[in-house]
């Protein structure tokens, strides 16, 4: 068990180090459509496209830093938020963060 935790930590730090060290280049294209991603996956917990709290916190107007958001999306939080580090590239995650930062209350 301790061994596994260690491996996980090691892996986490590798992923994390990677995330911080290599911000995606500005001209790389994300492979995902973020609004669709919220409708299929994220919005199930981050209600109303991330605008209000549900099973997960409200993402609109988040006071968290980009690095924090990036790390949470990559590593998740066991039993609360799935880890998406093996699913999305850094470019994808940049696009997700841009979507979160641009969220506005729904009109009407």
């Amino acid at each position, binding site marked *: *068990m301790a061994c*596994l935790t260690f491996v*996980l930590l090691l*892996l986490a730090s590798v992923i994390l180090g990677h995330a911080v060290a290599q911000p995606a280049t500005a001209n790389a294209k994300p492979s*995902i*459509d973020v*609004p*669709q*991603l*919220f*409708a*299929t*996956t994220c*919005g*199930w*917990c981050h*209600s*109303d*496209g991330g605008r*209000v*709290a*549900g*099973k*997960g916190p409200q993402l609109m107007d988040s006071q968290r830093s980009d690095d924090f958001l990036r790390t949470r999306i990559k*590593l*998740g939080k*066991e*039993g*609360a938020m*799935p*880890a*998406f580090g*093996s*699913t*999305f590239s850094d470019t994808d995650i940049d696009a997700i963060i841009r979507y979160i930062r641009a969220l506005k209350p729904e009109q009407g």
Partner: protein
Amino acid sequence: MSNRQDLALSLMLAVGATFAAVPGHAQPVDTSRIAAGSPNDWLTYHGAYNGWNYSGLDQINPSTVKDLSVAWIHVPGRSTRGLQSVPLVADGVLYYTGSYSRVFALNGATGQVIWSYFPELDEMLVARQTHSPYNRGVALGEGKVFVGTVDGRLIALDMKTGKVAWDSKLQDSQKLTVGFTGAPLYAKGTVVIGSQGGEWPGRGPIYGVDAATGKVKWTFLTVAPTDEEKKTWGNDSWRTGGGGGWMPGTYDPASNTLYWGTANPAPLYDWSGADWKTTGARPGDNLYTTSVLGLDLDTGKLKFYHQELPHDAWDFDSAVGEFVTIDRDGQKYIVHPNKGGFIFVYDSNLKVKNVYPIVEAINFVKSINPQTGELIGRRDFAAGKQAEPLCPAIDGGVSWNSGSYNPKTGMYYKIGNEWCITLDVVKTTPVTEPAAQLNIGANFKLVPPSEGQIYGHLDARDPITGAKKWEVRFPEPPMASVLSTAGNLVFVPDSRGILHAYSADTGGELWNHSDGLGHQGGIMSYAVNGKQYIAVVAGFGGMVSDDFAPTFGEPYKSMPRDDGVLVVYSLK
């Protein structure tokens, strides 16, 4: 090891004097014992194959219940997403599971640990999963305890020692990202377990496994098992899949039939509008999602079925494993709740005999024809924001836990939930390979029904006609199972953490006690050496209960979500 021997020895000494029902002396747990359902035991998920969730014990009753108090507790540890399982009891030993499929065998009279088993799971996979790592219980049979895991295994443990008898990898969860959270069902040499499904591409298998060896005997795909059913998934949309049978159903020994409920198709919300037969995400009926199935236990062959919601466009699946079997006037009925808030009544071949709603806040259909089960006035959404909220909410008019049928009162006690969601249906690209987990197809938010507040209620109804005798309301929907007893009591473990006992006749509250954590799992009763116990798991957090803190505030905001405790009551 020597510790365990010490424990076993002291247990034998302690136990030898006080009760005779020590493991080892008893008859093996087999199909006939489970079918007969002795009141001292609780041998399968729903108590017995009749699916009643009922205890024939009456020591705890309206005149004694005031003396009900905690006999012992057990803390399983690492209760990520709380506790959701139903304890089983055979011959004085209680078996139950916590998160990560941790299994415990406890002395039913004292809570002393006889053995425990913590499987090593694929932690990297668990970290990627949404519906994880909770577990909803074990099955017993042939001297073994069977448990599923979220990384796709079914494990058999020796009932006496907890030693692994076999450990079978049933599905490639690393690829599919889903495994097993529901309890297995044991019957006549076969262990049956259904995969998670619904939100994932995959075909939602139900497995029949040889109890002696762990070898798969048969697999039933709940999504398009043959080319015939593929026709009910236009544009090859069976590839987006869904389905699954993540709660244990039940078994009828007389006809060797397994009754099982299936989950929804993916994406949950379709953008087809009224033309769902020809357009949208998955044109057609989408067999066999949101259906009840009758399978042959030995072969897994489909004998008959009823699709409760053809082309389910609302995530109101049929995965609830409750098949309440009732004989009335020489006719056999099977009562099955659907997540949409309707109760379906069938004959033993799953032919519709009646359908009635137990929830007020329903607008996904105008009604369901009680003679045929046909949906009348269904609401099929086009892409975009829906002007009127969808009722019930995605959390269900009926949730996955069980109600209780009491043969003494003839009443069916069942929780209904009144809540809705705003809905913005989004047209998405088909998800045909496991990727970023879920496939919902909409953005939504929990809201109250138009005529007032969110609430839940316990109804006492005639199970066949649906006639309501009384109702008890709760400010927040209770998420746990209900137990009724021959002692004329109905127990409701509520979401705030209070265990209530009501008169089974009138619904009058007779007793309550706080378990300190919200309930969202099982409750059952058993006896050791002539003494009746009530066992209930407490521990909140999970797919539905995580909506409670943002929706209701306290006491949910302050409630720990990754804790759990098994609380066992008896008379002072």
